[in-house]
């Protein structure tokens, strides 16, 4: 695919503003920036006046002073951030429907030109996922504030509340911006920048409840382990840079005024890889493995999840994990998948890791009494399921498979679908815990007891989320797990169907061994059912604790978020057709080589 570059050498910022199409392509990200600026500006507006020097004329200056009633409302930051995320989601959706692909180029002083960002269906679907997840978290936080408006004479408490809320939402939007950049990035370094922007914001968000020990501890642990993993990943990238000369993910050919520009990217570079490249690959896997909380890089995750407030834990389990999977997919499926007849170099390593990850996650979740830790381990297990599907693609070149691209596209579709619907039921489950936190804590399974009597609708929603996580039809979790399995079996079966119908004998043992990964996923879902069911049993069976018999607080925003999650869990399960097609188109754009 060639595209035309009008003026070969331009700084990236010049390019952005000289070209209205580029500007409109990046509109969601600009909206996020505007939102951050608005969050900084709006809560500071007040009755400040400035006196013109040497005169007595005072003109309103608005920054500082006694703040207006609206701007000091603790709900204002949340409203701004929800509005920002909503607009960004709508813009991303509109651009996805418009189906425009756009490269954002950068060219330095040298003749070397690189592609920084690419706006395509793949990036847009993930942006919608990120913004949607963050929006749900932002909606959930509204109810976590004191319900009453501050009085006329502002109390110190209200002031602090407002300031803290601003910090919280700025960090939230920043992490959203970073995630969006990860989705768009076409250069590993750019991807790393986005990853770090998002991660640093999330480290602070995890530790945001600084008054509690658990929050601080979880945040610090998460930060130290995360920073180490990032450093290792960055080192791997630098080695890759030494080996290859640039960090472009795919190759591009552009026709410019000065002739044809060819960018030789890393895609399929591993066909003639040497040990340096493999070391680099391994190090990058550590970096991304931490983000998706794969075993053995998951140890900080349970502490971080249980220390963070529930909506943030939900973001960690959905959006942050999706970010890691973008990295994994780019590295494993675009860079290190060989073109030749063999299977990928990482096939056995990743297959082992994925099986260990899902098993470890499930076994650890079996033994945890804290619902948040349980969900953290279940999130580890889900990472294992998705990694198993990714692994299967590594076998796509074995033997005779007539349309390997299709098989790979199918797996990417499944992973994207899983990540999108994970937002509905994983985040939903965390939001239910958030509602319980308002009521006095959700760190013991006992806090869920008697929920069915206290609030049948919330209990039913929680049960729906649990069943979806376990993969019980007709919920979205079943559909997504089904698609992951289908992806694995598709690769394993290969062209068996055509062979059989054409008379060629294909026996059961001719299936590729990745078929057994599907069995591992299924056995693990059966194990996982045990602890998901336990939550249901506790909610519907056990009596509520003696001090927690009253109805749950009426946090309408939070309830709204929970209901929409439950509705989504159900709707994507029985009518996920459009989403599947959307993800499939996105997956095709992921593999579309320029």
């Amino acid at each position: 695919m060639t595209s035309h570059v009008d003026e070969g050498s331009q700084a990236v910022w010049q390019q952005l503003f000289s070209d209205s199409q580029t500007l409109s392509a990046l509109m969601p990200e600009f909206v996020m920036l505007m939102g951050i600026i608005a969050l900084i500006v709006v809560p500071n507006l007040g009755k400040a006046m400035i006196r013109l020097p040497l005169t007595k004329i005072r003109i309103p200056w608005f920054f500082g002073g006694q703040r207006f009633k609206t701007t000091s409302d603790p709900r204002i930051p949340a409203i701004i951030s929800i509005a920002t995320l909503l607009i960004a989601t709508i813009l991303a959706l509109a651009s996805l429907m418009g189906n425009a692909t756009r490269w954002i180029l950068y060219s330095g002083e040298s003749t070397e030109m690189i592609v920084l960002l690419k706006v395509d269906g793949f990036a847009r679907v993930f942006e919608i996922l990120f913004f949607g997840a963050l929006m749900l978290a932002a909606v959930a936080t509204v109810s976590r504030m004191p319900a009453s408006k501050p009085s006329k004479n502002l109390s110190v408490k209200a002031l602090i509340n407002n300031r803290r809320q601003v910090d919280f939402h700025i960090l939230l939007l920043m992490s959203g911006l970073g995630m969006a950049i990860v989705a768009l990035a076409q250069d590993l370094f750019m991807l790393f920048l986005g990853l770090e922007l998002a991660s640093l914001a999330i480290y602070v968000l995890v530790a945001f409840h600084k008054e509690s020990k658990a929050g601080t501890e979880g945040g610090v642990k998460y930060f130290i382990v995360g920073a180490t993993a990032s450093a290792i990943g960055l080192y791997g990238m630098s080695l890759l840079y030494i080996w290859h000369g640039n960090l472009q993910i795919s190759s591009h050919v552009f026709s410019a005024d000065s002739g044809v520009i060819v960018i030789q990217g890393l895609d399929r570079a591993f066909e003639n890889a040497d040990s340096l490249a493999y070391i680099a690959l391994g190090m990058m896997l550590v970096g991304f493995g931490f983000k998706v909380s794969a075993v053995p890089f998951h140890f900080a995750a349970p502490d971080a999840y249980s220390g963070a407030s529930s909506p943030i834990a939900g973001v960690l389990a959905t959006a942050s994990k999706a970010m890691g999977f973008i990295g994994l997919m780019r590295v494993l499926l675009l860079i290190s998948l060989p073109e030749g007849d063999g299977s990928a170099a990482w096939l056995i390593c990743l297959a082992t890791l994925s099986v260990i990850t899902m098993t470890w996650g499930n076994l650890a979740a079996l033994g945890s009494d804290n619902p948040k830790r349980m969900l953290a381990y279940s999130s580890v297990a889900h990472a294992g399921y998705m990694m198993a599907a990714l692994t299967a693609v590594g076998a796509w070149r074995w033997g005779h498979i007539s349309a390997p691209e299709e098989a790979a596209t199918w797996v990417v579709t499944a992973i994207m679908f899983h990540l999108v619907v994970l937002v509905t039921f994983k985040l939903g489950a965390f939001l239910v815990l958030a509602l319980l936190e308002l009521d006095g804590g959700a760190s013991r399974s006992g806090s869920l007891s008697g929920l069915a009597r206290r609030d049948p609708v919330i209990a039913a929603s929680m049960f729906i989320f649990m069943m979806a996580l376990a993969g019980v039809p007709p919920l979205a979790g079943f559909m997504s797990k089904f698609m992951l399995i289908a992806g694995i079996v598709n690769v394993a079966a290969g062209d068996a169907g055509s062979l059989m119908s054409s008379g060629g004998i294909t026996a059961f043992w001719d299936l590729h061994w990745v078929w057994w990964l599907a069995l591992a996923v299924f056995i693990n879902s059966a194990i996982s059912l045990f602890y998901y069911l336990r939550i249901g049993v506790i909610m519907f069976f056990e009596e509520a604790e003696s001090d927690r018999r009253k109805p749950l607080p009426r946090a309408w925003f939070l309830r709204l978020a929970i209901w929409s999650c439950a509705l989504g869990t159900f709707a994507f399960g029985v009518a996920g057709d459009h989403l599947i097609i959307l993800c499939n188109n996105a997956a095709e754009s992921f593999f579309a080589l320029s």
Partner: protein
Amino acid sequence: MSENSSKKAIFEREFSIVATLVVGAGALLLSFPLFFEEAVGEIDWITIPMVAFPILASIILLALASQQPRGMKENMAFPVKAASLGFSLFILAISSALFFGWLGSIDWTTLKINEYNMNHEYTWINSLGISWHVGLDGLSFPMLWLTTLIIPITMITTWEENSGWYHHPLLLLMEGALIGVFVALDLFMFYVFWELTLIPMFFLILKWGGKDRRYAAQKFFLYTFTASVIMLLGIVTLYFLQDPSQYLIDRGVLTGRTFSMIDMTNNAQMAANDGSVWLGESMQNALFLMLMLGFLVKLPAVPFHTWLPDAHVQAPTSGSMVLAGVMLKMGAYGMFRLPLTLFPHALAEYQYLLLAIGMISLVYGSIVCLGQTNLKRMVAYSSVSHMGIVILGIASMQPLGFAGAIFMMFAHGIISPMLFSVCGSFKHHYHTLEIGSTRGLAKASPFLGGYMMFSWMASLGLPLLAGFVAEITVLVAVWMTFGWWVLLPALVLVITAGYYLWSMQRTIFEGSGDVVLPEGMAAEDARDLSPWENIGNLLMALLIVLFGVLPWIIWDMMSAYANAHFYFNMGGLLNLVAGGA
């Protein structure tokens, strides 16, 4: 004064809810014939309301009742119960109309293999080739009718149990899911409904069960879920073993394959007619075993049966009745519909394995029955033993055996709910399930004693009752195939008679004219069946007699199915086996 006004408010509220329900149900009943008239002559779509109405009704009732303030919910129990019974009777009316030909002439006995009445297809999730594909034949229709029959009978029998506001909606949800399983001709849809049945049953056991209900409910869910995910893996593998068709890809199916059972059956049949083995031998065997595992656990057959006694003993009467009456039949139904139809060669290969499983289930089930002191546990093991007869019928690989197995499913489907219903009444009135703790039941509660004796007689296979027809046909089929091996199951039937007669002697009679009540029970507390229980049991007893005396009412379609199935599908296969050998 204030108390009066609050009472009035409650009354008004209750009245408005009942009125809403009545108006809603009325609107539904009115709109249905209109819908019907519009499509007169074509009743293909008839199974859609049969699946959708109970599920929708259950969701609406649950939503309505759960939103009532505290204290009101208990008052909701009665309207919800009445509405649920009304809905289930409505569904029974539709299915009976199909059975007796009130909705135009429907021929159940001339269907060839892979031919279905009410065959209807809508696109559901097109990108994966999933469709809402339904159809009924001589195998699925009796099961469907049985489901619609057992649910209202269950509701009637347990009418007086004070079970709160969400017991009956769960039964309705169960009904919709079960009907969905029996009408599905799309593997994905089949699996979705298959798993959906677990959720209401889990809650029925968990909320209204006995002392160890928590353990039993979880064990039930885990066992059957584990088995069915392995089955799902088989289904997915089967899906990807099909050749992608360009026609489907052009229609927007991303994978180019469908989950249609009809297509798969066609392929299997064509291969059998060619004298070749569809998908190859080792693949067929592997898929056969994967699918069979799911169904054998559900059935349950002996190595996988341990969830059943726990679930049954702990389940409430209504749960046990539906579980034994219909849910177990899902396993046998699935076997006929999938592995036996698609992989006849593997069936021939594993014929002796099935024979062994069937024999062991039968023998082990009855011997364990002999040692039971708990009435419900004994009845549960007798279910295992009777399901062994179904497997024997399959293993015989005779059309007669197949038909007998299907008839066994149906007969056991009306006998076992009655067994559990009398156990439930016994527990309800005498607060115990121990055999021998009560003596002279026939004197203390003559109706209860009478129904108990009748149901046990039906279960042990007394001639002129439904169970006998099934047993005798299966035994004849086993004799046709395995010769004198038939003596083993035949002798086991004697054990069956033994444990029933022994328990009968210890519970219903004996006591030298005096009634012995359980410890701590006053003589005046020994009540007999309530009118509702009487009605429910009478209905079941009449059905058992009806199908024992006039089995051809439903036997014809089963026999037609078995014959068509055998000659058109396995006939070719048997030629292949004979020719090859």
